[in-house]
């Protein structure tokens, strides 16, 4: 940038924003794509470190503004790193046959989970056919019948012998509704009491003894029956188990051999084998539907039947055995369930029930062994998600639970799945404010997220970086499938990127904003049948975007044009100056002039900020007004009490005012009111001041200049109109072409100022005046007039405070 002389209008040709590069290429089609992100070396270094670090807790927070490429950079770096890592192990949940509430988690080499599931399904299918065949076989029936008959014969024999003995002893055993009746018999009839009493005593005693004997034997026989039945059941069970064992062992042999070297799967297969043997009757349950289906029984999917659910292998994470390294998972909806997995329920007769087959994996499961990219704001916004993520990272394992369970909202059967060891790198992507708040407020955060990748928003402009910018555009249009951008188009984009960064010496790294322009320009190029996106398409896209978002700006200009908002663009007036503000509403950001006025009178040294008094001014604005009070106090009559009362206001401002960028304008209005010198209304002013009278940089300088320019242009440019800006803001100027055109034609001026004196001189057309060796300002200078007015105020105050003659003045 050429040297800037304050107090003189800027030469538009000297503005840095105009001097974009002379590119040596015709279009971006000739450029090599970038493999990295320009200007983000620090962030990329952190990303690569996070990808390479083996230690836990070196998780990463990627901070930066949206559109800076932080997420795509994280994705690309992690994907590259993931390809060098081994494919993680598969995970399945299987039944815990000893404690169904606590399903067992098993890890297997990649690809083996699906193999195990398929193997178990085949075993179940086979056994569903083979076990019934075994139990229907002649061999089994014969052996079963032999057991039954042996016991039946034994019981029958005991009963028959008892019946015969009872009959021989003259005792009847009669079945009654209340049990077995035992009585003495006479011939074929029950011995009646009279007949019994007529018998000799010895005979009666013999009968009594016989009855007692038979009764005892009967009791013994009947008591032995349940014992014998138990023994019979036991023998049958033994037979069933031995038959089932043969079938199960045959069916499982291949699968057990396949997983012979793997302890956990093998342990499960052994437990499953025992359960299948113990519960072989599950394979004997027949359903008419299955038998009557359209497919042959041999091809039926028996493993889907409810009774075989216990043998299901619930594959929660499966990888291709020859897959491309570790996973990189992005979870865009990081709810609690989507993070740590969930246990689903189904309604059965009004009750919610679940089992291990309803365990579902979360993002942590899927990313285990690799990388998980999450949006920090979304994780924090989802109930319990942040807490669960921290728990998992801190504990090094994934424990599945539901929010309802955590808050005791659900009172139903649930599971406690065995936690799965967690070994992954979590990458949170968020803005800076969030990062700093987490560091400040969450003690766990700094411990679990030791790395930060800070993506810059801007890149210093240099020949090298300009070249990188062009390649960045080339890379982006290729990735997005857009037309190449002509060199002129890249130059125009570069100018816009400077404008977006509010700095003619730095271009923005917010690729999202540039991408929007490129997409629209590509559309326009397509309509025009152009092979490349030229500067005209870029310009048209920028203009169109401005126009779309320009309704409020136009309304504001219209209000000024119709004199609803009173803004003068010519003439001169005491105590009145055009200040500039920036309105930022939604995606719209535009400058608007505002009239600042000042009134003065004698008082006690108070400068009233009406905005603050009306509670419309923010703290920074109030600070600016206080600073200018300090300037006045130090600049004029340091030996006399400040006897000024002044009021400052933004006229016709009904919203809030914040920022100190109008403090220079307010000071100029005050100096005008004190000096009685009129301010040229062809000027607008922006800038803050310090207590020594230096004019300091402010934000939004481009929009402010353009805002006053548009007002002037609407009324007709006089060539006298212009904007006073802080000299330190010149490097931020990237003005729109309409302003630059007017500057080139000397119809509009942008004048940098460094001090208050410089500014007031331009505004009043009279030298500010420096204090001379005699301690006085030059006569008729602005400062001399101000000081004289303040002295008059002091004198008036003194006289007013002296009261009647001869009395001491009051303080």
């Amino acid at each position, binding site marked *: 940038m050429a040297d800037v002389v304050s107090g003189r209008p800027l030469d538009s040709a000297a503005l840095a924003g105009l001097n974009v590069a002379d590119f040596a290429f015709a279009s971006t089609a000739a450029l090599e794509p970038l493999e990295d992100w320009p200007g983000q070396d620090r962030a990329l270094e952190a990303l690569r470190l996070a990808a390479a670090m083996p230690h836990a807790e070196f998780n990463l927070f990627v901070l930066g503004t949206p559109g800076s490429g932080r997420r795509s950079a994280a994705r690309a770096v992690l994907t590259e790193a993931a390809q060098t890592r081994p494919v993680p192990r598969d995970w399945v949940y299987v039944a815990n046959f000893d404690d169904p509430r606590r399903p067992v988690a098993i890890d297997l080499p990649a690809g083996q989970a699906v193999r195990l599931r398929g193997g178990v399904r085949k075993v179940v299918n086979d056994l569903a056919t083979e076990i019934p065949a075994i139990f229907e076989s002649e061999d089994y029936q014969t052996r079963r019948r032999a057991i039954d008959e042996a016991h039946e014969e034994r019981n029958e024999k005991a009963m028959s012998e008892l019946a015969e003995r009872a009959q021989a002893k003259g005792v009847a*055993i009669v*079945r009654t509704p209340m*049990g077995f*009746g*035992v009585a*003495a018999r006479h011939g074929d009839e029950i011995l*009646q009491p009279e007949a019994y009493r007529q018998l000799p005593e010895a005979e009666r005693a013999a009968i009594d003894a016989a*009855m007692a004997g038979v009764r005892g034997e009967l009791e013994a026989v009947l008591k032995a029956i349940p014992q014998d039945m138990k023994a019979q059941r036991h023998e049958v069970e033994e037979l069933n188990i031995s038959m089932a064992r043969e079938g199960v062992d045959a069916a499982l042999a291949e699968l057990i051999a396949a997983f012979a070297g793997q302890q956990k799967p093998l342990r499960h297969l052994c437990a499953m084998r025992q359960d299948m043997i113990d519960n072989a009757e599950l394979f004997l349950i027949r359903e008419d539907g299955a038998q009557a289906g359209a497919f042959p029984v041999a091809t039926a999917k028996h493993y889907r039947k409810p009774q075989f659910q216990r043998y299901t292998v619930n594959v929660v994470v499966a990888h291709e055995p020859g897959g491309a390294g570790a996973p990189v998972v992005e979870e865009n909806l990081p709810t609690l369930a989507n993070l740590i997995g969930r246990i689903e329920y189904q309604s059965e007769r009004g009750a919610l029930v679940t089992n291990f087959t309803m365990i579902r994996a979360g993002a942590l499961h899927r990313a285990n062994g690799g990388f998980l990219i999450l949006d920090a704001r979304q994780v924090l916004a989802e109930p319990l998600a942040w807490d669960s993520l921290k728990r998992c990272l801190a504990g090094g394992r994934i424990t599945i639970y539901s929010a309802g369970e955590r808050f005791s909202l659900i009172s139903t059967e649930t599971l406690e799945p065995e936690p799965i060891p967690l070994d992954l790198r979590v990458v949170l992507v968020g803005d800076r404010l969030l990062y700093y708040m987490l560091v400040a407020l969450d003690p766990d955060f700094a411990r679990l997220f030791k790395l930060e990748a800070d993506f810059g928003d801007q890149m210093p402009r240099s020949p090298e970086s300009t070249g990188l910018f062009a390649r960045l555009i080339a890379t982006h249009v290729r990735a997005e499938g857009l037309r190449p951008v002509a060199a002129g188009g890249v130059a125009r984009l570069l100018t816009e990127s400077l404008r977006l960064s509010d700095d003619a010496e730095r271009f923005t790294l917010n690729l999202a904003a540039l991408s929007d322009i490129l997409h629209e320009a590509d559309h326009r190029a397509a309509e025009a049948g152009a092979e490349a996106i030229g500067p005209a398409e870029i310009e048209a896209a920028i203009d169109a975007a401005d126009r779309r978002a320009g309704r409020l700006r136009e309304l504001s200009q219209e209000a000024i044009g119709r004199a609803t908002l009173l803004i003068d663009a010519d003439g001169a007036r005491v105590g009145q100056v055009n200040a500039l503000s920036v309105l930022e509403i939604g995606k719209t950001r535009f400058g608007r002039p505002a009239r600042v006025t000042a009134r003065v009178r004698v008082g006690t040294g108070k400068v009233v900020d009406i905005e603050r008094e009306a509670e419309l001014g923010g703290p920074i604005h109030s600070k600016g007004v206080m600073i200018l009070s300090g300037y006045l106090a130090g600049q004029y009559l340091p030996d006399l009490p400040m006897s000024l009362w002044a009021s400052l206001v933004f006229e016709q401002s009904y919203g809030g005012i914040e920022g100190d960028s109008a403090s220079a304008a307010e000071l100029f209005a005050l100096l005008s009111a004190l000096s009685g010198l009129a301010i040229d209304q062809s000027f607008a002013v922006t800038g803050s001041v310090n207590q020594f009278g230096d004019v300091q940089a402010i934000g939004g300088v481009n929009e402010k200049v353009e805002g006053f320019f548009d007002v002037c242009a609407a009324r007709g440019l006089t060539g006298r109109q212009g904007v006073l800006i802080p000299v330190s803001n010149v490097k931020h100027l990237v003005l729109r072409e309409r302003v630059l055109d007017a500057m080139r034609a000397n119809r509009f001026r942008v004048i940098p100022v460094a001090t208050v004196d410089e500014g007031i001189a331009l505004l009043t057309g009279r030298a500010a005046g420096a204090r001379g060796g005699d301690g006085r300002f030059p006569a008729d200078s602005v400062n001399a007039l101000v000081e004289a007015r303040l002295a008059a105020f002091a004198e008036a105050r003194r006289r007013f405070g002296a009261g009647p003659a001869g009395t001491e003045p009051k303080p």
Partner: protein
Amino acid sequence: MTDRPHRARIILGATTLADAAGALALATALAAEGSELHGLLVEDEEVLALCTAQGACIVAPAGRAGGTLDAGRLRRAFIGEAARFERLLAEAAGRAAVRASFSLGRGRLAASLAAAAGPGDLMIVAAGPFRAPVREVVLLSAGLSDPALPVLARATAERLRRPLRTIGGIPPSGGAADAAAAAGMLDTLGTLGPGAILFAELSRTGLSLEDVLRRTRCTCVLRA
């Protein structure tokens, strides 16, 4: 009014629900061939006589001594078992789609059965105090005139997957030797265990229903 033509019945007679329930499946299967199923529970005088018999006692099915008998309790037990028998009968008949009826008798089982049975009816009764799973089907060929009875016996054996055994005997001729033959036949039948089902037609064997029920310990299917 016209008399309804007589339809052969399967009469399941019993003095206890346990006996009736044990033979109900057999009776229902036989009735399913086209007969009506009739249940008959008899308050057996012999059982009631136990209440007054000197020293008589009850042993519960589980083998515990049940004390002495009381006529009132026994009668109430009969009535309760009759109600349950009738319900079981209706349920089984419903499942097999056969017509069923029920009656409660009093007296001696054999006499009540004889009184209830008409020509062509088939009486089913479980004799003896003990029950056992079916182990064999026995057909008494002596005095057999009904060609359907062997067919039924064979079909029952096949259905139950149990062997069919035929035992013979001397057909009655009216002489003194017949009594001895009948006694011998009764002795033979007395050897049948509780796991046997006996198919017999008594009318031409010289055996009385009462004798058969008193001497045998198996389930009897007898042509009236």
